[in-house]
């Protein structure tokens, strides 16, 4: 019974990793690549480590496995967010068919507000 469970979980994990790598290869721009890959690989590695925990069925090993899974689930979104922010700041281009860039609206508003502030400051200085 546990053998079948191990087979199913490890196959699912391997297929998720394969899907993530295909997404990384085929997707058109950086942001879609990032959004596809990070989630799929985290899920795949989680499935494989779950199979490991079922196979050994020992308390210390299960604790270790849960530590790794917890760590991956906490850190990979943070890393993805940071690298996406860095890419946006260093102006990596989006795909031509991307519909929406919400961050651009925010930064445009900020820039216009800063310009207005500077202009009013200059006017007050001149006056």
């Amino acid at each position, binding site marked *: 019974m546990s053998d079948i469970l191990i087979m199913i979980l490890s196959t699912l994990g391997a297929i998720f990793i394969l899907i993530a*790598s295909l997404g990384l290869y085929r997707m058109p721009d950086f942001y879609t690549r990032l959004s596809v890959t990070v989630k799929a690989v985290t899920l795949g590695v989680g499935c494989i480590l779950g199979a490991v925990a079922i196979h050994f069925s020992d308390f210390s090993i299960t604790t270790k496995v849960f530590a790794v899974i917890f760590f991956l689930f906490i850190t990979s979104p943070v890393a993805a967010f940071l690298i996406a922010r860095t890419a946006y*700041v*260093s102006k990596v281009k989006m795909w031509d068919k991307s519909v929406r860039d919400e961050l651009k609206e925010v930064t445009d508003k900020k820039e216009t507000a800063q310009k207005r502030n500077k202009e009013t400051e200059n006017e007050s200085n001149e006056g």
Partner: protein
Amino acid sequence: MAVESYLMWVVIPIICLSLLIIVVRFLKGPHVADRVIALDLIISSGVGLIGVFSLISEDPTFLDTAMILALIAFLSTIAFAYYLDKGDKNE
């Protein structure tokens, strides 16, 4: 024994194939950020490969390596993001 041979001949080849595809993207990647996520992905799938290998060899000590590797993946991505940010500001 059936489980070991199944893992050896089905699961590990799938992961190795995906590693190859990721390496192609790592070599192609038009921007540095693409290479960074390819590297992150290589290390994460390496954690999965180590898990399967510890299943095959019946040796749970490999999981310590997997833990350290997950830590290093996070640290390397953070460090790359930090220094890419800094480099852009200095220009």
